[in-house]
Every structure is written in structure tokens, then in C-alpha cells.
């Protein structure tokens, strides 16, 4: 689990996650998945909000990043977060199936990629990578 002091002396050892997705149904499902695993989570609706929330000083153990979003997509947001020095686990989740598109997303700085829809077992495999 998150080492103490890793995120500015956070009291609890609870894992934290940021859901980045423009789809309301997906946000609700991802929230439930994370909640069921005891992971504190927050949701934003596009890549720009994901960047902004980090600019405000917040960090997360895990970021679930959708690819196609208005204002700023997942590829651009991932790139910017990495440029900002964010080292959190970023897992891309998308319905895109073209290898080229997935590769572009991964090369933007993802630690993992999962095809939507997200399931409990996919989420658990992402989390194992954090702790592994």
C-alpha cells in the first residue's frame, strides 16, 4: 500500500485514485469498482481537469485515464502529467482497438493499458502492478 510520507505525510494508508472519464455511466462504475476495493477516489470529466487537480497540489496512487475526452484527451493529459513530474501509476482505459492508437497512448507515458469496459479483475491486475 502507499508508503507513509510518500504523498506529503498523508495520515491514512488508504490508496487513492483519480478517475478521468467524460462518460457519466463509466465514472459511476469506476467509482464503485474502486470503492469496493477500499480505494478513496475522485472523478474528473476530462484531461484538463486531471492536469488542473494536480496543479492544485493533489496527487494519487493511481490514475484511470480514458482516451477520448473533449477539451483535452487522455494522450495529451498523460503527456502533460509526466512532464509535470507526476510518477503515479497511470492506467489507460479505452475502447480503441487500433494498435497504432493504443501505442500512441502508451508512449505518452502509461504504466498499463486495459480495454474497456473495466472489470474488477482488470482493476486488480492494474493495482498489483503498483504494489508488485
Amino acid at each position, binding site marked *: 500500500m502507499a508508503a507513509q510520507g510518500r504523498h506529503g505525510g498523508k495520515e491514512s494508508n488508504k490508496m487513492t485514485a483519480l478517475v478521468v472519464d467524460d462518460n457519466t455511466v463509466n465514472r*459511476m462504475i469506476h467509482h464503485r469498482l474502486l470503492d469496493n476495493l477500499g480505494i478513496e477516489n475522485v472523478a474528473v470529466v476530462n484531461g484538463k481537469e486531471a492536469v488542473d487537480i494536480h496543479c492544485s497540489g493533489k496527487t494519487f496512487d493511481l490514475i484511470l485515464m480514458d482516451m477520448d475526452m473533449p477539451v483535452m484527451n487522455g494522450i495529451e493529459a498523460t503527456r502533460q502529467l509526466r512532464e509535470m513530474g507526476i510518477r503515479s501509476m497511470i492506467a489507460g482505459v479505452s475502447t480503441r482497438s487500433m494498435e497504432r492508437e493504443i501505442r500512441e497512448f502508451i508512449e505518452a507515458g502509461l504504466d498499463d493499458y486495459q480495454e*474497456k469496459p473495466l*472489470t*474488477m479483475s482488470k482493476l486488480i491486475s492494474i493495482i498489483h502492478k503498483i504494489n508488485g
Partner: protein
Amino acid sequence: MDLVQLQRQLVDYRTSLYHEGFLDEQFTQLQELQDENNPDFVVEVVSLYFEDSERLLNELSKALEQQIIDFKRIDAHVHQLKGSSSSIGAQRVQKLCIVFRNYCEAQNVEGCLKCLQQVKHEYSIVKTKLESMFQLERQILNAGGSVPV
């Protein structure tokens, strides 16, 4: 109808929805996310899906009535509908959305209009079926029973 009969009816009904391709494995995933702490999760997320889908279908109708069709906007709406349909396991709606997007890419208005009608039709069927299923579940709970998994 007694409790056991109701429970059996629900199981049969649910099985038929999977059998006929209205629902897929993803719907099962949603049921597995429901527990004593979140006993209404499935109904809540499906209700959100209904709300969101109806909004999108309205937007799509309006967009296809315009003098100048904005295919990019239409594609964005269909993408959303495809995404949420996939997330709740509404397989038939999801599959039609894929066809719809192909017509968008080809900028084929006739194709889009035909597809929209088909999507509306399939959506209204799955909505009716899910609502019937939820009603059966409510009847079981009201009769003091538990909903079989």
C-alpha cells in the same frame, strides 16, 4: 404467484436476456458490484444509463435534422452511447453504435438516419426488458424473499 415461482420467473427471464443477446457478461459484472452496502447499485447505474441515453438520442435526432449535418458531433454522441451501452452490457445497442459510427465516417446521412431508428428501437426494447426485470426483483423483495443471483 408465490415467492418460489417469482424467483424462478426472474432467473428464467434474466437467462433469456443473455441468451437473446440483449445483455452480455458486463451486466453480470455490475451485479457483482452490488452488495449489502450498495443494494441498489444496478438499478442506479442502469437508471443513469437510461437518462444519459435518452439525452443522447434526442441530441442525435436534432443533429440529423439540421440543414448542414455535423458528422463529428454526431460521431461524438454515438461514441458516448456506445461507451455507456458497453459498460452496462447492453450488447445490441452497442453493436448498432459501431455500425452507426461507420456511417458517420462515410458521411452517409441516409445510413445515419436508418441507424438512428434502429438504435432507438433496440434501446427501447432493452429498456423495457430491464424495467420488467427490476419489477420482478421488487416483487420478490416485497414478498419477503431475496433476489437469486
